[in-house]
């Protein structure tokens, strides 16, 4: 699971008000190289929940992103920032581990890179 996907996921247990972002328990993280595409990153930037990305990346062992979301102008001027964004968003893979609901602590397992977000009967 990449952080670009994690950025979209939230805990949907009944009654949970703050299910986003999911905390990451990183069991096995691997890095897979992806072609650098600045246009794609610029296109995605506005939709990214920045804090979730920074915290997620840190959980996966990458702490190079700025705490605060930079101004969009940096996308055109700062290639080193774009490369860090690219790396965090697309190249870090959680192969084994769990996504944890910030409110209930419920763990959603991640196996072979695939999160299992199925709820139990008593959670719906």
């Amino acid at each position, binding site marked *: *699971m*990449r952080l*670009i*996907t994690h950025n*979209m*996921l*939230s*805990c*949907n247990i009944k009654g949970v008000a703050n*299910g*986003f972002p999911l905390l990451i328990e990183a069991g096995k993280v691997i890095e*897979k190289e*992806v*072609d650098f*595409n600045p246009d*794609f990153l610029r*296109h*995605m930037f506005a*939709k990214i929940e920045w804090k979730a990305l920074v915290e997620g990346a840190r959980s996966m062992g990458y702490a190079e992103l700025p705490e605060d979301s930079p101004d969009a102008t940096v996308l055109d001027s700062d290639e080193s920032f774009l490369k860090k964004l690219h790396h965090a968003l*697309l190249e870090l893979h959680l192969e084994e581990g769990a996504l944890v609901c910030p409110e209930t602590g419920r763990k*959603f397992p991640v*196996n*072979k*890179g*695939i*999160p*299992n*977000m*199925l*709820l139990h*009967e008593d959670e*719906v």
Partner: protein
Amino acid sequence: MKATLAPFSFTSLPYRTNSSFRSPSLLLKSPSSASLTTAARGSVALKATTSTEALREGIAEFYNETSGLWEEIWGDHMHHGFYDPDSSIQLSDSGHREAQIRMIEESLHFAGVTEERVKRVVDVGCGIGGSSRYLASKFGAECIGITLSPVQAKRANDLAAAQSLSKRVSFLVADALEQPFEDGKFDLVWSMESGEHMPDKAKFVKELVRVAAPGGRIIIVTWCHRNLSQGEETLQPWEQNLLDRICKTFYLPAWCSTDDYVNLLQSHSLQDIKCADWSENVAPFWPAVIRTALTWNGLWSLLLSGMKSIKGALTMPLMIKGYKKGVIKFGIITCQKPL
């Protein structure tokens, strides 16, 4: 963990209903099935399998077992092809694959989906990701696919990687009735032949609407039963019987009609609700599937694939019968969420 005696619930597959999600189902009561599970400290807890969980597991297992076989023979789109009504059924394999792509394109066209608007797509019941990868490529969009089958999700991810689409497309195991997304995330909410599996159509539609972004479009392409006529409360018993037999093999809960979907969407105050009956446009499909199953290669693969696949194959003539008799319809229902 203390041992608890959970209340038993009755399982009821297939559901016998009066064919409308609106009325309470008349459940076919059968002895409850309970499974014994051993909790961590060795105490024994009796866990009743609810019908919804049983269905969910059944669907996952069905697709875990049969996906590989389907992909081998038909490729990565697990849906009907779209054909001109009087086209010859003697198409080549590539003709059928083109028809499956055409189904996607016709659906987008019917819904009025234009390229500029689509940045994020959710593929609800994504199979091995054929639609997801196609839509992501076509629109340059991000797409997430959800499926109950871990085998499908893995295969979908592997295919995305092989096609260099990994940065745009990802897959997870999740339930369409409890989508793990916040509200309003997706410009396009895509359900291509997955609605049949949803035991609670109202909840299914509610989730589709919830995750759609303001201005976003919802596309549901699904098998339905025929619309009921004025004054008709249920399908005829022989019609219901036919559907029940299909339900059992394909892990389908109650069928509903296109009208039922339209009514549900209307209850959510959605705009531009449209529907169409494409039954004539999919007529060549099942005979073609049966023909591929009856080749030596097909038969051998079926035997190797397991009982679920074999039973699935044996049920296919019932689908043809259902279409021919006008009981089964292939419908598209689309709408837009207001801004």
